[in-house]
């Protein structure tokens, strides 16, 4: 059976420091995987390797039948993997609608054409409108992305990420910097817009993680400590020792 995404003995060093130290991971189609782990464990680096931002030092990455390690981000995106960013990464001086349309164009085959008018691309425009409704920004059609509130920008970030219809979606801390109530709404949104997709997400909020994910990958110090269902991960003594216990303690100390 083909995995949606598979990492084989993946390693990445920056200089002499090895950040990712032999990661193996196989994600089934349609699975929702939460990647958790302490700060600096290598979660974001892992996403950067998968999405082509960095090339791995060794190991393999497979997207379905295609081997994608070392490929350019746009090549990987065209094969059906898309990602969002921890720090909002949209097109600030374009409107909400234009942002989404930019995310749509390639997937509908418009490529680099300059012989067609955007206004006449009915399918791209309809898709952008639909996305705008999905992320609840239809009333901000012509507002420049830079003028949106933070939560709206985060929603647009997700919108641009899913715009091209990629089957595998990586969300890097989608709820970073949001309040509790915003986070709850936002998780509903993520669940809605990623129906039927394979989802990997880095997330710090444990409530969110256990509510959203089918499986949890615990990354500690560049290695996958555990990869299992939420219940199994919660019961795993090694995880408790290495991460969850200390995290719970931290949360309690912080007054949650």
């Amino acid at each position: 059976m083909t995995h949606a995404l598979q990492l084989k003995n993946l390693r990445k060093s920056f200089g002499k420091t090895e950040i990712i130290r032999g990661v193996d991971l196989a994600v089934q189609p349609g699975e929702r995987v939460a990647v958790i782990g302490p700060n600096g464990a290598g979660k974001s680096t892992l996403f950067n390797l998968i999405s082509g931002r960095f090339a791995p030092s060794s190991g393999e990455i497979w997207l379905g039948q295609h081997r994608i390690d070392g490929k350019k981000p746009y090549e990987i995106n065209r094969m059906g993997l898309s990602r969002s960013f921890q720090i909002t990464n949209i097109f600030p001086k374009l409107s909400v609608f234009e942002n989404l349309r930019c995310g749509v164009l390639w997937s509908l085959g418009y490529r680099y054409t300059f012989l067609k008018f955007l206004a006449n691309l009915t399918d791209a425009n309809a898709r952008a409108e639909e996305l705008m409704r999905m992320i609840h920004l239809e009333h901000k059609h012509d507002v420049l992305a830079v003028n949106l509130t933070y939560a709206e920008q985060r929603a647009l970030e997700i919108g641009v990420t899913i715009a091209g219809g990629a089957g595998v979606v990586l969300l890097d801390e989608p709820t970073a910097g949001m309040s509790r109530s915003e986070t709850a709404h936002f998780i509903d949104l993520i669940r809605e817009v990623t129906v039927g997709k394979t989802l990997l997400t880095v997330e710090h909020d444990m409530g969110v993680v256990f509510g959203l994910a089918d499986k949890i990958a615990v990354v500690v110090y560049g290695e996958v400590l555990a990869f299992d269902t939420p219940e199994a991960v919660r019961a795993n003594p090694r995880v408790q020792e290495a991460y969850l216990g200390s995290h719970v303690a931290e949360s309690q100390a912080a007054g949650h």
Partner: protein
Amino acid sequence: MTNFRASTLQRARWIIWSVFALTLLLAPLVFSGNLGITILCQIGIAIIACLSYNILLGQGGMLSFGHAVYSGLGAFVAMHALNAFTGGKPSALLVMLLPLVGGLAGLFFAVLLGYVTTKKSGTTFAMITLGIGELVFAMSLMVPEFFGGEGGISGNRMTEPLLGITFGPQRQVYYLIAVYTFLSVVTMYAFTRTPLGRMLNAVRDNPERVEFVGYNAQRIRYMAFIVAGFFAGISGGLAALNFEIVTAEVVGAARSGSYLLFTFLGGATFFFGPIIGAVLMVLAFVLFSELTKAWLLYLGLIFMFMVMYAPGGIASLIMMNVRVAAYGRLRGLLPQYLLLAVTALIALLGLSALTEMVYHRQLDGATGATLNFLGMALDDGNATHWLSALAVAVLGVGLFEWVRRGFAQRWHVVQEYVEQQELKKREHAV
């Protein structure tokens, strides 16, 4: 409702394009003197050049210091093409197509040199364009066969008559330029509304994210660079026909610099900004330079002030006021504008009198101590004249600053009002 909005927009677009075409058509009837036609010809050429430059600067965020390479090489190739066919007299049809030859040459060199140039963005891109600009200018001295050395190369645009057209009279050349200007402006505007044109904006805003929605940012920059090179080449081809001589300056850094300067001055953030810039460029070079020897100094100062106080250029100033007018608040600002203008004029009078006296003393000492300044005889040996000029300058600057502060407050209030109204409007729309 959307349909209604779309149709009014459509109508507005037709009106704007018709007005533009009519302006091009009728301008030589209004400015019918020799000087008028000369200036109009150069304005048409400059419009194409500045708009093509803005594909890089405004639409793609590419700060090029070497755009004259493409307009200039286009001019040289067009001139060689003209001469190659001037065994007898060229046919009028050939002359009509010559700007396209220039365009194809610009395109060719953009394909060739742009590949290296657009590999990088930002500062590196700017440095490479500077380097290539210098390189091509140096080539102009090394390869006199192509560039014609010091004297450049010249040609004759006069053709066998075709329906009375010989391209001898400047007016006929003007209409050729006008047709190319109109078509180029329409095409370049259309380009901004295509997938490639929009993705170019996306690359300007955030080249990294572009790569995560399936696009190769470098490829987009390269293709835009080629489009810009093509239109630059067209302007070069027209310039070759217009002047009937092409010298090495046309590929030089000064020319590239003035494209940048005036595109910026006109306004790089709006499509029509560079058109304003182009008009100003020609007026500055042809008229202003006749008026005073210190014209480059004034130009530098204007540029500096614009960068500091109105980085969006004249176009953005216009659009800001159009927005205020749309909410009915412009009328209230008019007295303030009048005061600003009057005080600015006083300041300018004093400052320019001082400048002119310094220039006169340093450069024209041989012609005597007096100079003619707006009909007044100023004597650069007379202390009273210096002091009165200084007094006017200080008074003008002081008054201007005083009025400006009041205006800034008023402007702020108006902006807040406008933003509030816009917010209300948007909420109504939901």
